[in-house]
């Protein structure tokens, strides 16, 4: 957390001069579930990037690759996994109730407490 400043040291009128400084605020601590990226399965369709409410899908724009998650900010909502067409395909193919942390999925949602590197 930033140190609290006095009235002489902040811009007037409540103006915030540092655009996008919310990146300094870690919302990743809210997470109960963590998205885990299965690079091998990914087709780099960027659907997860399109739908992430937290701008937390990391992409390599030059090579047009999805590269992972911004875990500093990802709140673990699971939308990326739900919109992933690879996941949809896997779930359909499995023809069974698939656990959300099934290793066959492109984006798996793993309980934070149970996550291991």
């Amino acid at each position: 957390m930033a140190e609290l400043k006095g009235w002489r040291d902040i811009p007037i009128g409540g103006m915030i001069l540092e655009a996008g400084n919310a990146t300094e605020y870690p919302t990743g601590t809210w997470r109960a579930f963590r998205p885990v990226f299965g690079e091998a399965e990914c087709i780099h369709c960027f659907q997860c990037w399109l739908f992430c409410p937290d701008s937390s899908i990391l992409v390599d724009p030059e090579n047009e690759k999805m590269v992972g998650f911004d875990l500093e900010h990802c709140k673990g909502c699971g939308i990326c996994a739900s919109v992933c067409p690879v996941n949809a395909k896997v779930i359909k193919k499995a023809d069974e109730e698939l656990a959300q942390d099934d290793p066959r999925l492109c984006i798996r949602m793993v309980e934070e407490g149970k996550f291991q590197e």
Partner: protein
Amino acid sequence: MATKLLPKELAKRPDRLSPGHRLCAGCGASIIVRQMLAAIDEPVVLSNATGCLEVATTIYPYTAWRVPWIHNAFENAASTISGVEAAYRSMVRQGKIPEQDVKFIAFGGDGGTYDIGLQALSGAVERGHQFLYVCYDNGAYMNTGIQRSSATPLGAHTTTSPAGKVIPGKQQFRKDLTAIMAAHGIPYVAQAAPSQWRDLMKKTRKAVNCGGPAFMNVLSSCNRGWRHGTDETVEITQLAVDTCYWPLYEVEEGVWRLTYKPREKLPVEEWLKRQGRFRHLFRPENRHLIDRLQEEVDRRWERLLRLCGEA
């Protein structure tokens, strides 16, 4: 050349909304904002009504906005941006600042748009300011803790239209704000949903390039108010579209056009049953409310088809 509406192309430009904002996990509002702003190549200047999007993105001393942004109050996002736009036009005309094809956009929730901000919105579009007003409609005052608004669907439980022993949730249908805005005769009005991202982006581009005031009503799931899982946002939004509770259409220079027709129009129940706010409607004594809602959805859908020349 405008950037192609391909995710890989759009992702080449940094997000205009940064991470680190404090909207709830799975919020529909920031999905809408990200998609819409990604579709616009030009510089943007935003105003924002008081509401979830405003409070959660700008908790001092932090801001998630990487573009110029102003919040004034609850009911005046439209009049505030009208002042910004007037200032821009005046100063450009006088040669005080350069002309840069700035797109002025106001964001407000349904409370700030259907209800308290309706007058300011009506006035600002009547005056012909060049701006796009976006209502992210989650169907209640979510920021203050889920109170009913005139956008709340019939039967929905909110904290001011609770499902009680005598009154089973909200007793009125949603106000048809999109049609009200179309009645203003402004160049562009559309209804959209982020689950249909390409449709939303195309409409956004049309709206900011229509040469006058534009209005878009965009369905925004709120998993806290609608009562569904944080990962179901997109799916449940699409169900609203496929049941025709939330049809996707546009009104361009007075011409109504359906932009998406579900292959199979699903019963509204399919959308309702996925949300806790409608749970009480599935009790036998409340069944008639689902029927009433279905009738109204059908009536409005038929009317829309007629307006769009599809009936």
